[in-house]
């Protein structure tokens, strides 16, 4: 029973975010946390979302699975997945999608699992929809724990979360997410709480499993190295907006937006000359209760000029096929 949706996304698109804006109501005013976000998540690809803390990347991730905080509200826009508009979904319809078509991995594996229930019981619980026997569910749980390379997987079913290390717990979370065989896996900074050696292990594991299961992944991170490692496409967010998006190759080799360039300059892995002080981007994020009229990055941008104060830049086509929210990329500026 297909609906006559006029805005049906192209066939290779799993999910399309169209002009999404999210507000938070707080006692001290409305925070416009996401403003006019446009993104597509292609089928079977990994989309990375990067930006500094408070830029709205986690808010975006949570809006994709309908788990925004109680004081948050989708002000406008749509999130299209198949025939659904996730931005307007009823709670019961959300429940049907979560754990079937959409799954999520969280930031802190230490607190993401129920502390008073065994790993095995938690893995059985999430299969509550499947009409197979308890033993079959157990077998599936063991199978997926083996997929995430947990040694002696069968014995881990009886373990409680606190008996496992942080890395092991995040593997369990990944196993649980994949067990539901989602079309879309949202990973909200899944390696931030882990130390560096574990981080690369988990990223490599995610990459292998993504290729194996072919699901789409939205990977939120502030670590550029892991994003470069894992992602096909990247969106750079600043102050609740996407300021640049394109293929990972284009963004890392030919960044066009001054913020993307500054972000890459700050990545310790990319610093070639020995230095005593790590580079930073001077200034802070603008107040999102009153987003600036022109370009949001204007105040911190070394190359801003008069027009940046007046006009809010749209997404211009960039040199390497990306889209850039900066007047420097306006073809009309070149002509002038």
């Amino acid at each position, binding site marked *: 029973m297909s609906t006559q949706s006029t805005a049906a996304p192209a066939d290779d698109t799993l999910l399309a975010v169209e002009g999404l804006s999210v507000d938070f109501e707080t006692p001290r005013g409305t925070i416009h946390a996401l403003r006019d976000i446009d993104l597509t998540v292609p089928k079977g690809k990994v989309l990375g979302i990067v930006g500094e803390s408070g830029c709205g990347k986690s808010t975006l991730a949570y809006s994709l699975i309908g*788990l925004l905080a109680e004081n948050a509200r989708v002000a406008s826009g749509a999130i299209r997945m198949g025939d659904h508009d996730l931005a307007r979904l009823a709670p019961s319809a959300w*429940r049907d999608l*979560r754990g079937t078509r959409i*799954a999520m991995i969280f930031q802190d594996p230490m*607190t993401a*699992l129920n*502390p008073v229930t065994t790993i095995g019981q938690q893995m059985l*619980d999430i299969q509550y929809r499947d009409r197979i026997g308890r033993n079959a569910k157990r077998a599936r749980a063991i199978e997926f724990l083996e997929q995430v390379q947990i040694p002696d997987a069968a014995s881990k079913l009886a373990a409680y979360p*606190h008996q496992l290390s942080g890395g092991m717990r995040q593997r369990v979370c990944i196993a649980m997410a994949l067990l539901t065989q989602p079309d879309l896996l949202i990973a909200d900074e899944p390696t931030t709480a882990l130390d560096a050696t574990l981080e690369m292990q988990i990223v490599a594991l995610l990459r292998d499993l993504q290729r194996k299961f072919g699901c789409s992944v939205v990977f939120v991170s502030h670590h550029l190295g892991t994003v470069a490692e894992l992602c096909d496409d990247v969106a750079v967010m600043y102050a609740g907006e996407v300021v640049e998006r394109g293929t990972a190759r284009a963004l890392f080799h030919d960044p066009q937006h001054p913020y993307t360039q500054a972000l890459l300059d700050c990545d310790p892995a990319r610093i070639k000359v020995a230095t005593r002080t790590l580079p930073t981007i001077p200034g802070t994020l603008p107040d999102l209760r009153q987003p600036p009229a022109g370009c949001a990055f204007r105040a911190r941008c070394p190359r801003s000029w008069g027009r940046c104060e007046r006009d809010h830049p749209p997404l211009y086509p960039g040199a390497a096929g990306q889209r850039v929210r900066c007047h420097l990329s306006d073809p009309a500026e070149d002509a002038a």
Partner: protein
Amino acid sequence: MLFYTAQRLVLSVVIVMVAVSILTLMLHVVPGDPAVMILGPRATPELIERTREAMGLDRPLPVQILMFFANILRGDLGEDVFTGRAVSQIVFEQLPYTMILISVAILWSAACGIALGAYSALRRNTWLDTLSGVVSVGTISIPAFVMALYSVLIFAVWLGWLPAIGAGDGFLDGIVHLILPAFAIGVAWVGYIARIVRASMLEVMTQPHVRMARAFGLPDRRITRSHILKIAVLPAVTLIGTGVAHLFSAAVFVEVIFARPGIGALLVGAVNERNYPIVLGAVLITTCIIVLATLISDLVVALLDPRQREDI
């Protein structure tokens, strides 16, 4: 776990011994010589002296306490000064009445308190949540004996629905006689437990594992039961364990007001008569039960929370 339990039991014995020693000291501070009380005002000094000797009251205090413990080890709690009956027999006759009263009070207040607290947390800031908050704080601040007096006045005297006096004969009559006293000492605990469960549920609800359960589309009921409530009741279990001591002291008043048999009524009578063996025996058994209740609640918490079990 086994080692922990053994450790706790040893500690419990020490606590009981300290408590009984302190009590013996306190009894000696209270004016009134037991020998004089027994023999009446016209007893001769020689007779009083002889009775004091027979009761062991002429020995130094530490010796008296040691003798008391030595007798306990032989299962002998002493004899009633007036009737000569074994104290252990008298205490264990009265104990069931108090135990039933306290157990019923705990059960109904825990059931209502947990339900009310969970409801308040899930529907916070609704008028029912506000009302339950006000009523909880109100009932907590009313002492059990005031509650007992007014419930007698309203339900027994004015309305005449329930009996006011005694423990009743037979099973059904016993239950009918339990309602008012159990209500009087339990009602404050509904408020306590509801407040604790509400606060602890609100805290657990913000924890990431609850959001993770939502992310897997688990039904709300299941999230509430096995992801929120299962953790949120733990502080309430601890509270109930320590609450047994308060319930015993509340039972003293309530048993006197309702003229119910029980440890509380026995204690009040024995203190008035300076019937030391019965006071000591009753307090010893009560202390044992209170210490045991704390131990049991700690073990229940450990059973429900694997993180605690690990430390044990």
